């Protein structure tokens, strides 16, 4: 599966054709989660806890059930019925607890019951008739307070073996890694800076709320249509939660209006299936925006302490970080990821990192692009910026001096293969942005960022049609233009035009298990599998040509969409185009298809460097981002426009996270800003044109050199923007978001 030796001259890869799903999306023909209906369909609605932490004493749904429009009411009891999978464990148990509360409501917005009725309005009205008796318990929503000795315990026994003795039961996972001797390293430093930082939870803010249409019969056979980043995980999880066989539930992924990690799990799907099973009718369930904020998975909030020592020449002598991540009332906050990524861009002799996964009375966190990495980068890169300022050093030069390269031992353990960090830093230094003069009141910030990238289980099939066109079936929902990239890679191998290839996201009944569209893995892993499936089909095409020509198959090779004799000794035959072979394939051996499945391991880590200019209004504390440049290693950009889109999207979401987005909880533990008016995602006019530079240092683990690009782009922005704002304001900003009140207060204290 390694990188092709040929320093490939590509025909299709690297071009920028229109995306195949474009017309459907701009005309409204594309079907998203809420666009599907079924005959006899009911509408579901979910009753949610108004309390941050409460024991559920009693649920009385009799008044709702008495309504003629109401066809089913479900509570947790409707999930306990698991004939051949009793006693869910691990993540299945956590997901079940999250989609329908058990003994306790664990956060404001936690589902406690659900209704299916003949109309959406009837369902909502019925919810008001369900009486829930709560015994309100003390709650905690802040990460540091949740670790304090007097914090209320959210769930006893949730911690695993990794947690050192003596910690509060809300600390459920512990990670420690590093190498060298940090104390010895600090002793060599000319300057040591130690500081603390916090970031708030933010939501991915995908435009499409969760939505599904579920149908489950009493025979345990079901159909589910939903907006998801991974329908196999939805299939597996729903089957477990409902107690049915995985293969009996067919899941189809709709078009998806954004996910960014937030749609890698299930929220409403098991509830809709339970309602359907009870009512014996299809049930549609659609979240409103407020439910999305309150009850889906925002990212974790973080509290972090960083200590870095540096010599006068910019050499980092030692680095240490403690990262506490709050991920809601369930294990899963990515404290380990934050710790592992924080120092990953640097070649360090002495480094130590500690991560905590902490529970609090908030919704269960979900992945959000490079989960955990942006927070750590914010803290670490802020301290690096301060060291550069105090030592009078150029921030790009210092990062170049310490940059990890091929052969460096990563802060989290392994030794890097060929990576592109140095190339991104060199491109930053050479970019006109980096030397452009700043106006008074403006500041510039830079930051590097790292993400692992992922391979994951992948299965792809490709079938040729008699007219010479091809259909590709992938199992990874298209969240960023991946159908275009798959078609380009298949075109490259088959040698037929991009337009002649149709890529479909197949349902769970059509392919083997496919891991979720996450981990920046789709263009890498589904791409690799598409290439291999196409090559598999090419082998068969060559066999058919060999039969036609009456020569051994070894004497046939594939070139520019045609079978050709492999050399002068093979015989003198005209090139045989693909369509000529498929035209009579029924007579020469039957249908021609290709297939590939594997768990590819060579995803190839990815690095980026961002440059940001910010202007701060000293009288109001308001920040404008005046210029932004993203530089990132893509390995090989299959469709450069969609690579640039990922870079720009990461920067745009990072700008929101850095400046104004935050989950705001009141003293009562209720979420205060569960609408887009008060959850301040950037609007178009808040953003500058985001410039991009694609660096291509091929990934040795992919035939065409691809590295995933979806996640690294959100790692540097928080830090780069914080550095720009701090340099503009003349005061170090250590808390995100850097909202105007916070900046004005910091300016006053300066």
């Amino acid at each position, binding site marked *: 599966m390694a990188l092709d030796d040929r320093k490939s001259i590509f025909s299709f890869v690297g071009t920028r054709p229109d995306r195949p799903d474009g017309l459907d999306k701009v005309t409204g023909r594309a079907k998203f989660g809420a666009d599907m209906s079924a005959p006899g369909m009911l509408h579901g609605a979910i009753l949610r806890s108004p309390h941050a932490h409460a024991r559920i004493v009693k649920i009385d749904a009799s008044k709702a059930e008495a309504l003629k429009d109401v066809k089913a009411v479900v509570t947790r009891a409707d999930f306990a019925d698991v004939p051949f999978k009793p006693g869910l464990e691990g993540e299945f148990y956590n997901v079940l607890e999250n989609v329908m509360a058990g003994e306790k409501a664990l956060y404001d917005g936690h589902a406690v019951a659900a209704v299916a009725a003949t109309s959406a309005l009837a369902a*909502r009205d019925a919810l008001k008739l369900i009486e829930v008796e709560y015994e309100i318990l003390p709650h905690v929503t802040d990460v540091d307070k949740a670790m304090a000795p007097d914090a209320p315990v959210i769930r006893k026994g949730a911690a695993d073996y990794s947690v050192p003795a003596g910690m509060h039961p809300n600390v459920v996972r512990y990670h420690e890694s590093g190498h060298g001797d940090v104390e010895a390293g600090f002793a060599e430093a000319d300057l040591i800076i130690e500081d603390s930082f916090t970031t708030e939870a933010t939501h991915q803010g995908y435009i499409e709320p969760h939505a599904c249409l579920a149908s489950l019969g009493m025979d345990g056979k079901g159909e589910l249509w939903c907006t998801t980043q991974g329908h196999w995980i939805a299939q597996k999880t729903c089957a477990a939660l409902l107690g049915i066989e995985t293969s009996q539930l067919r899941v189809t992924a709709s078009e998806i209006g954004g996910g960014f990690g937030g749609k890698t799990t299930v929220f409403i799907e098991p509830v809709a299936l339970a309602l359907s099973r009870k009512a014996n009718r299809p049930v549609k369930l659609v979240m*409103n925006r*407020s439910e999305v904020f309150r009850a889906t998975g925002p990212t974790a909030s973080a509290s972090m302490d960083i200590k870095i020592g540096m010599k006068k020449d910019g050499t980092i002598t030692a680095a240490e970080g403690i990262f506490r991540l709050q991920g809601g009332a369930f294990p899963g906050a990515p404290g380990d990821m934050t710790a592992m990524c924080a120092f990953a861009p640097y070649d360090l002799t002495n480094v130590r990192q500690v991560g905590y996964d902490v529970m609090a009375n908030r919704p269960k966190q979900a992945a959000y692009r490079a989960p955990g990495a942006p927070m750590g980068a914010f803290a670490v890169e802020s301290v690096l910026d301060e060291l550069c300022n105090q030592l009078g050093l150029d921030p790009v030069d210092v990062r170049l001096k310490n940059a990890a390269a091929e052969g460096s031992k990563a802060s989290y353990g392994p030794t890097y293969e060929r990576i592109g960090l140095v190339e991104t830093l060199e491109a930053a230094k050479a970019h006109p942005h980096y030397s452009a003069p700043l106006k008074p009141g403006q500041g510039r910030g830079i930051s590097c960022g790292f993400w692992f990238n992922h391979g994951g289980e992948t299965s792809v099939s490709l079938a040729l049609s008699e007219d010479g066109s091809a259909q590709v079936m992938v199992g990874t929902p298209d969240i960023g233009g991946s159908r275009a990239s798959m078609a380009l890679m298949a075109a490259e191998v088959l040698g037929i035009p991009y337009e002649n290839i149709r890529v479909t996201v197949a349902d769970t009944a059509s392919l083997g298990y496919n891991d979720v569209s996450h981990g920046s893995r789709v263009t890498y892993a589904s791409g690799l599998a598409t290439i291999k499936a196409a090559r598999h089909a090419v082998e068969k095409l060559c066999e058919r040509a060999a039969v036609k020509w009456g020569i051994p198959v070894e004497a046939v090779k594939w070139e520019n969409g045609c079978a050709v004799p492999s050399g002068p000794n093979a015989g003198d035959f005209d090139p045989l185009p693909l369509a000529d072979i498929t035209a009579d394939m029924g007579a020469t051996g039957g249908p021609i298809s290709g297939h590939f499945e594997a768990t590819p391991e060579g995803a190839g880590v990815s690095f980026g460097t961002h440059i940001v200019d910010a202007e701060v209004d000293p*009288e*109001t*504390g*308001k920040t404008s981002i005046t210029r932004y440049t993203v530089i990132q290693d893509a390995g090989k950009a299959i469709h450069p426009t969609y690579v640039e889109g990922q870079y720009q999207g990461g920067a745009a979401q990072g700008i929101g996270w850095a*400046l*104004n987005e935050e989950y*705001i909880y009141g003293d009562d533990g209720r979420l*205060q*800003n569960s*609408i887009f*008016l*008060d959850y*301040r995602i*950037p*609007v178009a*006019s*808040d953003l500058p044109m985001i410039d991009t530079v694609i660096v291509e240092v091929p990934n040795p683990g992919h035939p065409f050199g691809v590295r995933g690009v979806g996640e690294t782009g959100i790692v540097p922005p928080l830090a780069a923007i914080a550095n720009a704002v701090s340099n503009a304001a003349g005061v170090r900003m250590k808390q995100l978001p850097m*909202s*105007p*009140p916070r900046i*004005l*207060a910091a300016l006053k204290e300066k």
Partner: protein
Amino acid sequence: MDYHSPASFAEASALAENATGITRFLAGGTDVLVQLRSELVTPDTLIDIKKIDGVHDVTRNADGSWTLGVAVTGAEMSEHPELGRDWPGVVEAMDLIGSTQVQGRATLTGNLCNGSPAADSVPAMVAAGVTLSVTGPGGTREVAVEDIPTGPGRTSLVRGEVISAVNIPARGENGGDAYQRFIPRTEMDIAVVGVGVNLRLDGDTIAEARVSLGAVAPTVLLVKDAARAIVGTALDDAALEALAAAASAACNPIDDKRGTIEFRTEVAGVLAKRTAKVAYARAKGEQA
């Protein structure tokens, strides 16, 4: 829920007077329908006032004053060839509301009667000295804008009363008005502080002024001390500082998710200065 579309304000008033439960008038509906959909307020009676004769008219009266129908939208105000020349502050305040879609629906009266302390057009209307015609069971009376809101979500209108027209005074000579708000983003946000300033010059000297503040107290404030700080000056630095101090002193804000007390108080002063400068420039006939 009952829906009515009366043909006159007398009829609208009678419908409202006889309705039980929660009654809402339906102008643009950009507050009413949003609150309905989000289950914040589910009215029992909806009285649509858009079908009444004249509610879409923008009229310049013989004395130079303006009468606006209660269904005139923000977009219609911005596109009017003359209204914005007389009252750029009122028009720019209304224009800040929402998006293009919202502008096609939203009205001054709806903005006022929704009762939000952060309503954008209200400080501008207060500074401009706008009055409302209020039709009730006993006939029609004229009320100053600042006398309508009584607290968040509440107005002084009594059961059966409906606003039937918006009256903007004649601009006169050497006058200018302006409105500015502070929001953390660049648009589609709710004012953390809003300031309206309207003034008239005698040469370079401010002869008359009205200064109003939004989002810093339970209702819009007409800040007489702030006006006094600039009347008789040519808006020099000392006058601006006195204006800022008076504006900040008038604030009685809350700490909430949208801004802290300290922040709102401080920024009210900053914005008062910035807004006064624009109004002053406009009064001098400069483009601003």
